[in-house]
């Protein structure tokens, strides 16, 4: 995928992340059990979004590095 696509994915991911951890979406994930790796489900939910951010930003950076190798820099982010 291109750098532009990964930029869009990154923005979309963090927007959905913001919506997923507040009212009303978070009310859909508001039972502590079944526990996930011993953690209440709401805590595991937030943790999963945090980890997902790491993956998405890392992939964006890889795409950026590829694009920079292929063409001269044309701006950040």
């Amino acid at each position, binding site marked *: 995928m291109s750098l532009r696509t990964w*930029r869009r994915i*990154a923005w979309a991911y*963090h927007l959905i*992340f*913001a919506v997923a*951890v*507040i*009212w*009303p979406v*978070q*009310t859909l994930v*508001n039972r*502590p*059990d079944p*526990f996930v*790796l*011993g*953690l*209440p489900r*709401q*805590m595991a939910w*937030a*943790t999963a*979004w*945090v*980890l997902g*951010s*790491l993956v998405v*930003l*890392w992939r*964006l*950076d890889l795409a*950026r590095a590829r694009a920079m190798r292929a063409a001269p820099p044309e*701006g*950040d*982010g």
Partner: protein
Amino acid sequence: MTDRITLVTVVIFVYLAVTLCVGLAAGRRASRSVQGYVAGDRDFGLLVMYFITGATVFSAFAFLGGPGWAYSRGAAAFYILAYGVLGMAPWYAMGPRVAALGRRFGFVTQAQLLVGRFPSRGLSALMALLTVAAFVPYVTIQMRGAGIVIEAVTDGRIPLAAGAAIAYAIVLVYVLASGVSAVGWTNTFQGIFMLAIAWALGIYLPNRLYGGVGPMFEQILEARPELLSLPGLTGNGEPWSWGAYSTAILASAIGVTMWPHLFMKAYTARSDAIIRRTVILFPTFQLFLISVFLIGFAGVLFPQAPDQADFILPFLILRSDLPALVVGLFCAGALSASMSTGDALLHGAASVVVEDGVQPFRRLSDRGQRLLMRILVVAVGGLAYLFALVEGFSLVDLLLASYGIICQYMPAMLAALYWRRATTAGVVSGLLAGSAVSVFFFLCPELKPLGMHEGILGLIAHIPVLLTVSLRGTPQDDEHVSGYLRV
């Protein structure tokens, strides 16, 4: 018991001495200019940037307030887990742009960037005032945190006031001597220490007290189910509102993005790639909150209770069967959290006052600026110390109040970096309107609709004012604007 307390105290003082040495040694590398004191000669690498970013965001608030909230307010604490990454992710795009503008125009503070795009000495002074107003409560949190730890581990022999004074006297010495270089290298030392301690304790306590993390939550669910249901509880034990929980996440995320000391640290990075990698790695720092919450939840069914929820971490450690040496190291980890944020804030507040509050009105020599910054480090530290002695508020509540003010920088900063049509009048009007609304609802919390955070309510007033006034005014000179938008 006395021998144990003495040994713990000795460990803490050894730790403080090592921190002081690291801070003083760091300053020997930097130049003696304002750029060296404020921006570390723009030469920080990935390791230091990673810890300076993590440690300036994770503080006594996370290390003591986080467990305090999990212990007393249950799932309400999860908001802290959610907002950090949301606040830091925009820095992947914004950080290199901010750093590039810093290199192009010689900026060392956030307000300089804003005032560069929107020339106004009044705006510069307003930013300086608002930044200090937000930093003082945040430094207060750190000082109280340090005092809490030292008072708890010495069994009250060194009271909170004296403990905070000792820890921050050391911070003052290395910040005065070495500026941001000391902040960077002490943050690295303290960050490594803090992460190791938090994870060790977060795994140890649930295992020791309940036989594991899963069994701990099962027992809490059985005995106190209200603690494991969002949005958790208020400080009084009443159910918290969804409006307050949700807007606390949003306001805090915006606040993280806009913290003036993060802008100042972006100027310190050696390259844009380092800023991006710092942002990518930030979620690994965020995960340390899990261990912090586990510590707090471990206290829920503990037979005894501390006087204040924020004391739960040292309270549990001192009642564990851990050797005194290990207890001392754990408490030093909590001190790390406090001092690593406090030093950056003291340095940041002093730099902002001089660069944004004084320089636009009276030009000082390089030497004069450095001298005034040092005086202000002591003055801001003294003011925060006085607030730290006041009882009756939680660490997290103080932090939320700071975020209300900092949130108001967001529309102005986005306009500076991305919106061609924004004008100085629009930005100043928006900032004044948003800050006024935010302060009003902070002072009259009973009037907040749906319990929403005052920072978000401020933004609801701020953004339309900025847009309307800007669009009705004369556009800025095209060449001037292009200097900021084409980076």
